[in-house]
Structures are given as C-alpha cells and as structure tokens.
C-alpha cells in the first residue's frame, strides 16, 4: 500500500528535464527530501541543519516513505519548549555545484554569497522567488524553493546557465 503511494508521487520538477552537468557547473533536483522546520533557541540535531532566522531552523534529511524526522525531533525539543513541523511538501531542493554555482545565483540574487560560510544559510529572493540558500561546500549550494515557484526557478536557472555550458 505504501509503495503504491510512493509511485504516485510527482516532484515539482517532474517531466521538466531540469538538470545540467557541465565542467564548471552541475544542477539537479533532489526531490522528496524530508524537511522539518524547528522553532527552538538551540540548534536541533541532524546531518543538515540550516539556521533560517532567530530561533528558526530547517532540518534536511533523506527521502522517506513516511513522515520520519518530525516525531523524534519534536520529542527531543519538547522539554526545552521547541516545536518541529514536517514541511517536506512545502519546498523542493535544487543542488548546484561547481565554481560557477555562486556566480549563476548572483545573476538573480542580490545577497552576497561570498560572506556565507560553509554550513551557513540565507533566505532571500532568487529570480523573484523566495528561497533558502545553504552552503554545503566552497563550490556547492542547496537551494530550497517553494513547490509553486520551482518550475519558474528551474526555467530561469537553465536559461541563466547558458554562458557556463561549454
């Protein structure tokens, strides 16, 4: 029964052909990530945890057939008055890597990404769409975009990447 539900799932970029593998730039969607927003003064536990604002965190985990991260996180946070809410369906995740990744984003984002350290996250607008941008390495970024804006952003990224496709 569960397997049937998973087979029916469609990511926001399903069927768009979004993706790029050029020497200096790769782009891909990582659909169905387990995303949980946490309200808590202290950072929650997790492999990928982004600070979205004061007392506000986004936990990113691997895809799962059920809501996997919310309940254990909520249990850990309850004593300190924190809360966790599954928002996996809220956004999809785009992964950009390569020396041109930050340059590409700079075409449509007024935030200076050079001041964002590895492990740091900023929220702002990219090509008019509200996004969270997390840096996982010197040349690798994760872009969390709302499902309704994903196709717009994917189209814009594919177009803006034209100079970097050799």
């Amino acid at each position, binding site marked *: 029964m569960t397997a049937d539900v998973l087979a029916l799932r469609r990511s926001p970029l399903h069927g768009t052909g979004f993706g790029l593998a050029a020497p200096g730039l790769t782009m891909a969607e990582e659909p169905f990530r387990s995303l949980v927003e946490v309200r808590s003064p202290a950072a929650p536990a997790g492999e990928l945890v982004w600070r*979205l*604002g*004061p007392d*506000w965190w986004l936990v990113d985990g691997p895809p799962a057939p059920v809501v996997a991260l919310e309940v254990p996180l909520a249990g850990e946070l309850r004593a300190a008055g924190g809360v966790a809410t599954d928002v996996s369906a809220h956004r999809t995740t785009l992964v950009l890597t390569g020396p041109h990744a930050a340059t590409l984003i700079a075409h449509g984002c*007024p*935030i200076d990404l050079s001041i964002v350290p590895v492990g740091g996250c*900023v*929220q*702002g*607008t990219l090509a008019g769409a*509200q996004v969270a941008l997390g840096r996982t390495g010197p040349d690798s970024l994760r872009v969390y975009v709302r499902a309704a804006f994903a196709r717009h952003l994917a189209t814009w990224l594919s177009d803006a990447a034209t100079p970097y496709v050799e």
Partner: protein
Amino acid sequence: MIRVPCPHCGDRDETEFHYGGEAGVAYPADPSALDDAAWASYLFVRSNPRGWLRERWFHGAGCRRWFNLERHTVTDEIRSPSEMRPQ
C-alpha cells in the same frame, strides 16, 4: 530601491520587506471607550514628519521578523535598527 539593515540578516533590498508604518503607535487600552474621532485618530493620524521617523519593518523574504528603525523621510538615510519587542 533603498537598502534596509535587518538586525538579523544585514543589509537587504527593500523588496524583501513589508513596510509597517510609524513605530510606537500603541493600541488603545479600552477601544470601546473611544468616540469616533479618537478611534479615527488612532487609525489614521500619524506624525508624518519631514525628517527622522521611527518605523516598523517586516523582513518577509528573510528572517520573517518585525523590527524598528529610524528613516529620514527626505533623504532615506537609515539609522539605529532595533528589534521590535512584542507589547
């Protein structure tokens, strides 16, 4: 376009924010005791200075927090941001 200094995110473009009007306009303690003129005054009358004005701003595309700052209504200079405390 002006650049708005968010106390949590740093300088960002004005388009990431919502403007909240003049800061420090307190909700009436007993609204039902006000006559129409006093209620209208609370709703609509602001100091509207030609110069420095304390304002509320909301960083909707970033940290989603309200905060105060002072803006010069002629030159758009901005100074002394401080977080808006809930009353």
